[in-house]
């Protein structure tokens, strides 16, 4: 191969590789790049650590709620904010499903982040949220869980492991199926 051939090769390979990479990235994102904000991934996302980080949260009723004391129950942690439209949209759904599972071994905890107290109170009032809610004022819990957007949900099974993590709002059907699945696992574990 002559000098020309070498130069041709040395130019063509990186250029074509770069173009191929950019094409791949565009195909992957459907030609639409990620714009403002990072929560382009909606739905179920990977759980980074299955051990839930314990916390103590002061609820709106001024009670101390400690996560580790709920061991044995299926727990859903919901990080939300009163100014976030999807959170407001799913608030009735959450309340309704919570009521449906009343009496079963299920607990919901709402953790409001990046919010103001009066706004949180009026939100809880407006949607008559039945489950305990608290404000994570300095973001300690949110950071501990690596929350990158709202709403974001973590499901903890009765053995105290984080098993599922969801970004974005959720409909009632989906929520029920997850809870049922976790309760079934719990029953299996209890019987077996």
């Amino acid at each position, binding site marked *: 191969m002559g000098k020309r051939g070498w130069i041709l090769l040395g130019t063509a390979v990186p250029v074509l590789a770069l173009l191929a990479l950019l094409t791949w990235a565009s195909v992957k994102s459907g030609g639409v790049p990620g714009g403002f904000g*990072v929560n382009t991934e909606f739905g179920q996302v990977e759980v*980074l650590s299955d051990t839930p980080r314990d916390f103590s949260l002061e609820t709106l009723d001024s009670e101390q709620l400690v996560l580790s004391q709920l061991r044995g129950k299926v727990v859903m942690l919901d990080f939300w904010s009163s100014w976030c439209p999807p959170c407001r949209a799913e608030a009735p759904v959450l309340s309704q499903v919570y009521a449906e599972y009343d009496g079963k071994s299920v607990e919901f905890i709402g953790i409001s982040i*990046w919010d103001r107290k009066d706004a949180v109170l009026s939100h809880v009032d407006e949607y008559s949220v039945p489950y305990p809610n608290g404000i994570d004022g300095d*973001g*300690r819990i949110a950071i501990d869980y*690596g929350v*990158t957007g709202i709403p974001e949900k973590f499901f903890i099974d009765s053995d105290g492991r984080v098993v599922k993590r969801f970004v974005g709002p959720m409909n009632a059907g989906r929520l029920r199926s997850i809870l049922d699945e976790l309760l079934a696992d719990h029953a299996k574990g209890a019987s077996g």
Partner: protein
Amino acid sequence: MLNARRSSIFPVALATAFAAVTLLALVAFPSTGFAQDGSLPSSGPPTGSYNEDEAQGIDRMLMCPVCPAESIDQAQVELARQMQQKVRELLAEGYTRQEVLDYFEERYGPKVLAAPPKTGAHIWAWVLPIGSVLLGTGAGLVILRSMKRPSAARQTVQEQGDEDLQPYLEEVDRGLAFDDPATAAGSSPPPEEPNG
């Protein structure tokens, strides 16, 4: 002559060596100089004692998870402020810089780091560009050296012997206002003097 030739490569070699050494030094000792003078009073949150400059250095190495391409030092959102606060708390608890970074990486994944660690698969992020740059610079210098030929003198003699050129040469000389090109411009290349 030998001396002159050797010394002629010297500054080039010096520049290259300079670039290579500083490049390696920076990679080997990351984040030198990005901290500030530690003598300044801190007015951060009143938790324990920590080095504010160290904290600011860490702020710059953590990406804001909810913002596009901004570190928590830059981002103007609440989460970034909370993360800054957390950095300071951890430092006050005695965490080292690396431990603080690990703390956040454990929670947010490697995406939260402004630059990946120089270990594991991410070593390629650092090694490959350095390698390419050194390789490219080396190749460039080799090509440059190969272009070097003592051609000027040969060409001069050759053209000088060309009788047909004489009228044009005179035209140029007259243009340059040399009355006598032989004395003014030197008819033959003078011997190269020894260096010095």
